[in-house]
């Protein structure tokens, strides 16, 4: 018991240190490097260096905050889906849920651009949520028919392709100067997020994650499978509905603000479970949030520093780190099944 608590504590401290380091690096590094000293003085005294202050508050702070919150939300969304499917290889991107959200957002964006309406964050998130749920229900319909997770994943990837194809089609059809932005967004990026948007994201993601945290008891019971969860007093239909809604909301919110971000939902929970040596949701869920935040912060740092001034899309970087983890997990599962 003691060993478990110790391991969890050490792991949490490790994640917290990484998070602080990631935040500081994200604030300091960029086209104009800011030293830690400058950072502190600029934040303390606004007038000491107005340019630095403006860079920080208008560009880097919102972007860092967005990467932190959205990355964390995405990882939690993945964890919820994994609980739902009782399978560690489930995530909002791989199952096509992010792409559904992307399609819905693209539709509403193109429509509003044509009409000259400025979209509010709420409308974007709402559209993304509808799209995410639509994809989710298609995935659920398929999962009722196929029992093998690998096939479900292939179907999810296909749904993703279909949605992306339609999105591309729409983007190409509509002719507007803003389309460049739309294109960037549809590839996934944390760039250009305004302070207001970052705050709006926080207002959705944080309550959703807190709600998810309160699902940790039924999630815990669900680890033994549906029948035993019922026997532990879990109202399974309610619980499953909550999982679907929360995971869809989280990934929809991420997609609305940053576009589709790949593989975070699978790679981060897997890494966190390995680090903590347990899959107990009450321990893992907050850690997944931290882990997702750290992962996205570092990936975002890479997108804008490694090939500067060219900026990569966030999915390019997360895929490089995340996809191998998924392959490794899938082959590991096959190996285990062969042994049985």
């Amino acid at each position, binding site marked *: 018991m003691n060993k478990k608590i110790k391991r969890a504590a050490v792991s949490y401290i490790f994640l917290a240190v990484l998070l602080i380091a990631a935040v500081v690096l994200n604030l300091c590094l960029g086209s104009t490097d800011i030293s830690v000293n400058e950072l502190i003085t600029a934040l303390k005294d606004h007038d000491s260096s107005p340019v630095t202050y403006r860079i920080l508050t208008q560009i880097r702070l919102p972007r860092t905050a967005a990467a932190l919150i959205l990355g964390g939300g995405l990882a939690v969304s993945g964890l919820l889906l994994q609980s739902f499917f*009782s399978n*560690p290889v489930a995530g909002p991107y791989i199952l096509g849920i992010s792409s559904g959200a992307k399609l819905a957002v693209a539709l509403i964006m193109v429509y509003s651009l044509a009409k000259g309406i400025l979209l509010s964050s709420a409308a974007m998130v709402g559209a993304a949520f509808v799209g995410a749920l639509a994809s989710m229900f298609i995935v659920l319909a398929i999962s009722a028919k196929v029992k093998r997770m690998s096939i479900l994943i292939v179907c999810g990837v296909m749904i993703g392709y279909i949605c992306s194809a339609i999105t591309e089609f729409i983007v190409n059809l509509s002719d507007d100067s803003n389309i460049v932005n739309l294109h960037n967004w549809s590839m996934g990026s944390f760039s250009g997020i305004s302070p207001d948007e970052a705050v709006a994201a926080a207002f959705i993601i944080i309550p959703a994650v807190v709600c998810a945290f*309160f699902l*940790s*008891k039924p999630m*815990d*019971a669900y*680890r*033994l*499978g549906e*029948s*035993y*969860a*019922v*026997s*532990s*007093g*879990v*109202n399974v239909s309610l619980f499953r509905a909550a999982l679907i809604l929360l995971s869809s909301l989280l990934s929809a919110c991420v997609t609305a603000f940053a576009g589709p971000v790949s593989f975070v939902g699978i790679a981060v929970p897997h890494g966190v*479970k390995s680090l903590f*040596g*347990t*899959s*107990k949701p*009450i321990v893992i869920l907050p850690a997944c949030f931290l882990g997702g935040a750290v992962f996205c912060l570092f990936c975002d740092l890479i997108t804008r520093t490694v090939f500067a001034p060219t900026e990569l899309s966030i999915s390019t970087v997360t895929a490089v780190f995340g996809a191998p983890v998924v392959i490794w997990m899938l082959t590991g599962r096959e190996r285990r099944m062969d042994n049985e």
Partner: protein
Amino acid sequence: MNDAVLSAEGLSVGYSGKAVLSGIEIKAEKGKILTLIGPNGAGKSTLLKTLCRQLEPVGGTVFIGKEDISRLKSRELAKNMAVLLTQKVKTQLMTCREAVETGRFPYVGALGVMGDEDRKKVDEALEMVGASEFADKDIDKLSDGQRQRVLLARAICQEPDILILDEPATFLDIRYKLELMSLLKKLASERGVSIIMSLHELELAQKVSDMILCIKGDSPDRYGTPEEIFSGGYIEKLYGTKKGRFCEYYGSVELSAAEGEPEVLVIGGGGKGLGIYRQLQRKGIPFAVGVLHENDIEFPAAKSLASEVITESAFEPVSVEKVSDAMAVMEKCRYVLCANHKFGTMNKGNADLLEKAENCGKLIKDVEDIG
């Protein structure tokens, strides 16, 4: 007086509206063990799943006390009833203790954090099933039998009034089969838990159950005490056995006898002949047994395995007539085997039989001597 903790009348169970079993009447009493037996695919699991609300009944209602089970809140039901199912659990990085702790979930707060009392009960349950030593191991890395015990501990620490077990003895070795049965007895008698389970192990069902419900075809066939069920050749009828015999005294099975005219006469008695019967059966050599008392421990096995048994009534000395019957059989046989070398007053006749066999040169020492 109605002590029924769980009851159902006119219950039909099945999948998606199609009844597999109907006309079920079931009554589980406090502190009693009710066992379901019957052939594979008879619907025992379906019935158990319906009783614990994992499946909706196709017709009828299940009651706990006087309450309709479908109206109970999930948590209330969980406090009343625990289950042990046959399906495999697949987990990821979950220790046995964590699995057992889920049994306390109906009692703890919204976040599922264990109190001291809960922890004590979890430890107790682990101890009861003999799983303490691997409590902190990953449940996915255990053997099937160990996992079964952990899941039983989970059910025990749930402190239910009703415990439903589907094939709980499967995967367990003989030691834990026996321990499981005495544990269930203890739960029933000391904690007053009423237990409903399905069993394939008839010998266990016969010994541990207070009542037995037999399921065959599409409805329950018989309901009664083990003594009522295990009599009159009913078990063979229930399972429709074609090969081999079921011994109702011991709840054990014997394979089919070798067919044909007896080649060997075995002079048995007192249990010493059992090994010889089984050896001959395995080799497929038909044999006769004589003279055996009807109350001899070997009698049921001889009845099942030998093509002919010359018997004497219980507690009577072996009569001259029976000895001559046996001698007649011996004439036809090529060999004689004798399990005993000492004879008492009651089976002195068998000594004469042995002497005759020696004289005519048919007596051999070992089954291996048969050419």
